[in-house]
Each structure stands twice: as structure tokens, then as C-alpha cells.
């Protein structure tokens, strides 16, 4: 619960800090991309705080490189 609140709080804080300056400088594209990554960040933090099982980046690497890695290291055994 605290993690969820903290994630939203931090997100709001960051948005409040960055957005006015970006909009004043007419940096629309930067503002959009910033909000996009902030949304990704908040979503990830909230899901993680709620203990939703997220895939580990290493699981993907294992899928991509695992067989090749085994073969290469088997050569050196």
C-alpha cells in the first residue's frame, strides 16, 4: 500500500517539477515522451508494489541466448 502511494506521489512530484518548464519552453514532444516514460515507470512501480509477478529481463535473455551459451561453455568444459 505504501509502495503504491509512494509511486504515485513520486510520479506527481516529478511531473510537477518537469512539466511546467517543458510546456513553457514549447517542448511539446519532450513533454509527451516524458509523460510516456513516467507512465511506464509508475505502472511498473505500482505493479511491483502490489507484488504482481512481472517477467524478469533475464528470463528473456535466457530464452534468446540460453541454448547458445550452454553450447559455448560446454566446449570449454
Amino acid at each position, binding site marked *: 500500500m505504501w509502495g503504491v502511494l509512494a509511486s504515485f506521489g513520486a510520479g506527481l512530484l516529478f511531473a510537477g*517539477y518537469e512539466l511546467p518548464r517543458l510546456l513553457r519552453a514549447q517542448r511539446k514532444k519532450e513533454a509527451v515522451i516524458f509523460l510516456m516514460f513516467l507512465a511506464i515507470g509508475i505502472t511498473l512501480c505500482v505493479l*511491483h508494489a502490489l507484488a504482481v509477478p512481472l517477467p524478469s529481463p533475464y528470463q528473456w*535473455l535466457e530464452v534468446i541466448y540460453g541454448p547458445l*551459451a550452454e553450447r559455448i561453455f560446454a566446449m*570449454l568444459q
Partner: protein
Amino acid sequence: MEQGRIGNLQFTVLAGLFTIGDTVLFVPALIASEALKDAWLSAILALLVGLGIIVFYTVLQRKFPAMTLVEILRQLLGSRVGGFVSLLYVFGFLLLIASTLLREVGDFMETQILPNTPIHVVYMLFLVIVVRAVRGGIETIGRTAEISAPWVMLMLMLLILFVLPESRIARVEPVLYGGIKPVVRGSIIFIAVPFLELAAMYMIFPYVESAERIRRNFLVGCAIGGVLLCLVTFLSLTTFGAVMTKDAIYPSYLLAKKIQLGEFLQRIEALMAIIWLFSIYFKLTTCFYGICLGTAQAMGLKEYKPLAFPMAMILIVFSDLIAPNIIAFFAINQVYVLATGTFAIALPLFLLLVARFRGSALGGKSGG
């Protein structure tokens, strides 16, 4: 986008700190688990191969001295394909290194120094200074590195000097008892962990004062860092023997605990932790700088600084997700070698080939 420039010395120092990075903390254990008593030979072999890799990195840098890797990608492959590959480089390579580093700091503080503090507090405290440095720009990072490097060097020297009386050559004899293959296996990990990761420096090459001296300075910085790493590995082996080195998670912290001069100078290991807290900090800052700058360049933005906060949030979650526990964390090396190799060796090689074939079509622009 980035107006700042860093001096040649600052770049050298940054390369050295990046090389020492997290490697000094746990790589002696990793290579000792493969090569046992010959881990120090693995370290030397890895250093030699690693310096070759450094020279290889600068081949692409010399072809495009005024561009980061993302800009090179976008010029050679077009803004769509190039942008996509850039994002792969940023999120598949830089973010991977950065989250591994943050996890290492967290795990280390958690198990050795601050056992009752939640790991996320350690993450956040560490990230605050990282984000601050990245928002300050490359000059801030360069100058901070210049100020901190002497302390890292001093502490490493003291560590090496103070532990020297405890070391016995007999503990690494007989040399090459298990043949050459374990040595090669051990060195592969050592090659990946600082030297393949150094491809993250592609993001700061264009901001170094004199582009033509990068190769020399890069080599000098990495050689100094690499030699120190070899010394630490050798000392762990000769002080504790191979079995204890491979079973310890943090052999160099164990080394620091060994320091005892008479009755008055002991228990200074927390002070010695300065070495890797500083070096990991600069490695993480460099990667995080690359993440923010790379994303901004890949998407054609005019500034990268606003991205620092959201990326920090993503980084915290990734650091947690990387591995369920510390044992699984150490079991991912073989895959890690190939994953970093794809971006550190295959990608620049591919770009060099593309640049060669498209060289005439791009005309004078390829000089950057």
C-alpha cells in the same frame, strides 16, 4: 543537446573507475569458481583480451568522432530502424548493466552494512545522487570523477599494501593444475564484466575534449583499472586460497576485513567500501547518462534531462526483477556474456560494415 565537454584526464579517470566498477567487488569470486587457483591467470588473460576490445571500440569512434552510438545508428540505418536498434541498445544493454549495478549496491549494503534497512531505501538514496549527476550533465560527471578518483586509488593502494603481508604464494601453487580450459572459462566472465560493458562509453565519446586522443586515454584508464583488478584477484587468492575466494560473495570486502596493523588500525573495511561504492557510482552514472541521452537522441528530442526521473523509477523495478535472490543473481553470467557481447562486439562490427558499404553514398558526412 549536450553542450558540455570533459577533459582528457577526466575521461581517462572515468574509464578507469568504470573498469574497476563492480568488478572489484565480486569478480574474484566468480572467476575463482571457474578457474580455482588459476583465477589470477584468467584475470591477466582477460586484461590482455580486454585491451584489444578497447582498441576495437575506438575504431568506430575514430570513424564517427562527433557522434554517440545512437547518432551513428540513426545516420547509418535511418531514423526509424536506427532509432529502434538504439532503443534496443539503451534498454537491452545500458539498462541491463545499470539495473545489475544498482542491485549489487543494494545487495552489498543489505548483507554487509545496513541489514535492517529496506533495500529500496538504499536504491533510492543511491539513485538520488546518480540522477543529480546526470541532470548536471557530462561536465558534472567528469569533474566529480576527477575529484573522487584519487580517493579510490588511495584506498585500493592501501588495501593492497596492508593485505600484502598476509598473502602466501604457496596458496596458488601448483599453477595450471587443471589445464588451460578453466582459465579461459574464468576469463570470459572477466572479459564481459568490465570490458564488454565498457561499450557504454560510446555515449560519451563525442563529448571528450580531443577525439584523436581517446584511444590512448581509454587504453591508459582501462589498463590502470585492469591491473588493479588483477592485483586484487591475486591477493584474494593468495590470502584466502581458491576455495574461500570462490565461496565468499565479496572477496575484496573480506580482504578489507583482514587489514590489521598492530593493535590500532583494524576494522576499517567500511572505509574500504569507499572503493567500490565510488567506482560503482561512476559506472552507474555513466550508464544512466547513456540511458537518458540515448533515449532522447533515439526519439529525436531536444533535451534528455527530463527523462532522468522516469528512468530512475523504471530502474528501481528492473533492479528488483533481475533475479529473485543473490544465488540466482550469480548464476546468470554465461547468458550475460552473450547479451553484452551482442551490443559491444556485434553491433559496432555491423556498423563498421554498413559504414564501409555506404561510405561512398554518405560522402563527406561520414566524417561526422
